[in-house]
């Protein structure tokens, strides 16, 4: 390791039960460098960050070197002591406290002092803000600042820890162009002082505007580290997508009857002027980078956060869906991305989770649930979708990811929904189980169900979607047919060109 490097890691792997999140990663970050970390959802970026910040410990055999100091793993305290500072997406700030306190109170906490030294705190905060060249009132309440300014406060706080490497997770997702410019200006001036950044983002155009080097991760593996000259649009796209499609590719069908028509819907801060058709019996893939607004579209159709303007038509008739209750009445189903927190009630049994949508079907006129009907229904569906283990009374939390996802799907099948809104259905599931979910979805489409499928995994989309819509930054960027599309074509629409730099 040479002395111009701040951080150098090798042979870093991380295995969770059933899944290998990181596989033999190596990474080096130089002093005074802005280093981009690129990869799709699930590529292992957040796991890597957690290892660097000491929240996770890597598998045996890992080597971590920070400015010459060696270790096999880090603790949060050690990591902070060595100069690594992470700014999470929620910033870890206090909206009810002042800017100055948000920046500098950590010093007093560290020292374990009884009293708070306001003058020093203000001086420290003031100096750091000056160093950053930012004009923010120290006494302003943090909650009154824009997100962009709050982020600068978060960076300022890192500097009080004498951070030498600041890791930022999706820092620009809520910033306007002008605010991004300011952030970059500050990052560059800190870089000149020798501070390094590890920058995780999906906004490739911005990454290319600011980064010195890029590391690409895919499926937990390190694909390569490049500097700007070594990377262009095509190379980048091929790196990000170039895996072989291991999935079974299903024959694509051409459908014609629109069952759901979305016309010009917009929602402030989520998406703008989105129009498309979902046809009967088709799987329409909705893809794009994370943060493009795909989940927001699903949630708008399902009534969780309805659009501010535009129309939604169901079989030709305009409908207004104000809540999930309306949506269910219109026979729309929603399989949320966060399966554990939003798709299932983990403490309850498989049987209970399956019938929650069809309580009216299994109860009699008095509103009493007939246990035998419930058991039969649950048993029936568990068998039909081959859910293991075949014990309806088992707690859902004890199932594997793939089986849990099947329960989520099953509860809507029991409802006989006609439109299925699915968000990242195979997230965190192993390959074999993924393919089975694909088969289930295709079978459902065959039998007439219309599926709007959000997925970040391009091979998955290409395997099962009949048509594909690509979103980019809240708008629709392109449409393709499932049989002619390629990963490159999709990626090209999903990102802005590298040469189209920001500021």
């Amino acid at each position, binding site marked *: 390791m040479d002395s111009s490097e701040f951080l150098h890691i090798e042979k870093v792997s991380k295995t969770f039960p059933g899944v290998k999140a990181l596989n033999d990663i190596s990474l080096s970050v130089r002093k005074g460098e802005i280093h981009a970390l690129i990869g799709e959802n699930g590529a292992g970026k957040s796991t890597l960050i957690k290892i660097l910040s000491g929240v996770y410990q890597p598998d045996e055999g890992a080597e971590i070197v920070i400015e010459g100091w060696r270790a096999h793993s880090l603790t949060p305290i050690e990591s902070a002591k060595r100069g690594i500072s992470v700014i999470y997406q929620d910033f870890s700030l206090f909206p009810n406290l002042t800017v100055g306190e948000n920046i500098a109170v950590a010093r007093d906490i560290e020292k374990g002092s009884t009293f708070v030294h306001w003058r020093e705190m203000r001086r420290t905060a003031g100096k750091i803000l000056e160093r950053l060249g930012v004009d923010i009132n120290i006494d302003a309440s943090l909650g009154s600042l824009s997100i962009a300014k709050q982020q600068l406060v978060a960076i300022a706080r890192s500097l009080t820890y004498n951070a030498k490497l600041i890791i930022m997770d999706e820092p620009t997702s809520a910033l306007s162009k002008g605010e991004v410019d300011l952030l970059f200006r500050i990052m560059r001036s800190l870089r000149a002082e020798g501070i390094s950044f590890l920058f995780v983002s999906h906004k490739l155009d911005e990454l290319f505007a600011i980064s010195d080097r890029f590391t690409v991760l895919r499926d937990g593996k390190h694909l390569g580290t490049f500097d700007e000259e070594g990377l262009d649009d095509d190379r980048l796209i091929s790196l990000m997508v170039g895996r072989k499609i291991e999935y079974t590719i299903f024959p694509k069908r051409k459908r014609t009857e629109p069952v759901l028509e979305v016309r010009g819907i917009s929602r402030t801060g989520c998406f703008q002027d989105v129009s498309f058709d979902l046809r009967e019996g088709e799987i329409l893939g909705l893809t794009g980078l994370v943060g493009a607004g795909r989940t927001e579209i699903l949630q708008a159709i399902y009534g969780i956060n309805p659009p501010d303007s535009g129309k939604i038509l169901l079989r030709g008739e305009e409908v207004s869906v104000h809540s999930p*209750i309306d949506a269910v009445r219109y026979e729309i189903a929603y399989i949320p991305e966060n399966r554990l*927190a939003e798709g299932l*009630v983990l403490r309850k049994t498989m049987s209970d989770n399956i019938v929650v949508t069809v*309580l009216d079907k299994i109860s009699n006129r*008095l509103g*009493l649930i007939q246990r035998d009907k419930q058991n039969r229904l649950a048993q029936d569906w568990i068998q039909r979708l081959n859910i293991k283990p075949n014990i309806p009374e088992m707690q859902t939390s004890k199932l594997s990811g793939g089986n849990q996802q099947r329960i989520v799907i099953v509860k809507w099948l029991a409802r006989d929904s006609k439109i299925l809104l699915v968000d990242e259905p195979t997230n965190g599931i192993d390959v074999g189980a993924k393919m089975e979910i694909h088969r289930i979805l295709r079978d459902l489409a065959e039998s007439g169900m219309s599926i709007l499928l959000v997925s970040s995994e391009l091979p998955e989309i290409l395997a099962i979607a009949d048509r594909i819509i690509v979103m980019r930054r809240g708008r629709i960027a392109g449409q393709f047919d499932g049989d002619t599309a390629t990963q490159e074509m999709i990626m090209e629409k999903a990102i802005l060109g590298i040469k189209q730099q920001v500021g």
Partner: protein
Amino acid sequence: MPTNKLSAFIRKKEFILLVIFVLVFALMSALAPRQFLRPFNIQSMAFQLPEFGILAIAMMIVIVSGGINLSITYTATLSSIVAAVAISSMGQAGVADWKVILLGIVIALATSLAAGAINGFVVAYVGVTPMLVTLGTMTLFEGVSLNITKGGAISGFPDSFLWLGNATIIGIPVPMVIFVAIVLASWYLMGRSRFGFSVYMIGCNPRATMFSGINVKRVLMGVYLFSAVLCALSGLIMSSRYNSAKESYGSSYLLQSIAAAVLGGTDIAGGYGSLSGTILAVMILQVITSGTNIIGINPYLTNIIMGAILIFVLALNYLSSRRESRKLV
């Protein structure tokens, strides 16, 4: 098969409660055999338990839904006070007794439903945390009650009204009959109906339940309305037994009903609760209060015992759940 069911039952919490009940009962009998085991005392307990048991069920249901209802005792007394005013003025006007009583019951229910609607609205539709809402409504209801009674008690019930709280049907106290009816109704409602099913789901994970298309707001409103109905019935029994209505009656039942729910295995965070467990807990607590009263233990000590039971059970729950999670790691 029978042995499996038996052993499964033994391992369940309800069995432990049954054992505790038997032990406490035996303890009280041993400490004051002549008074405690007297038929009069047994009957007296049977008269007293229902008003408490009904409130405990009302509390359990709200806790299962993920909340808490601090206003149950004042809802009960407010309903009984409003009903009492109506009954006593009607009675003086010479209206037929049974009509008067029926009217009283209807008015009590109407009052409690209004009270429950306030709770339900602010919890379900405005979204304020139940603890704070019911803290406010508890004060509000007490204030309204005091406004009506001016601090005193309302009496002047026709004799036939006393039947509700003091008579027996084939030897079984009327309140106990009412209580059993409520238990059956609650068992169906919570254990067998769609509504009850939804309440349990909401108590575990309101967001996922909402995403599944269940009208969470309506169910929560229903929870507070149902709990209010139970409060009204408890209030009617109390005012019939004491032959008067006052806002402070049954105020000790607030703490006791939470203790009963928790002791009966209800998860204070919501999502899990057993009706039979709560009833067994009610029986245990009732035996404790009656027994300590008979033995001659200062009534103030009873409060201490109740508070201690509550804290003890919660502490036990926490420690055992920590041990469980350590086992998993």
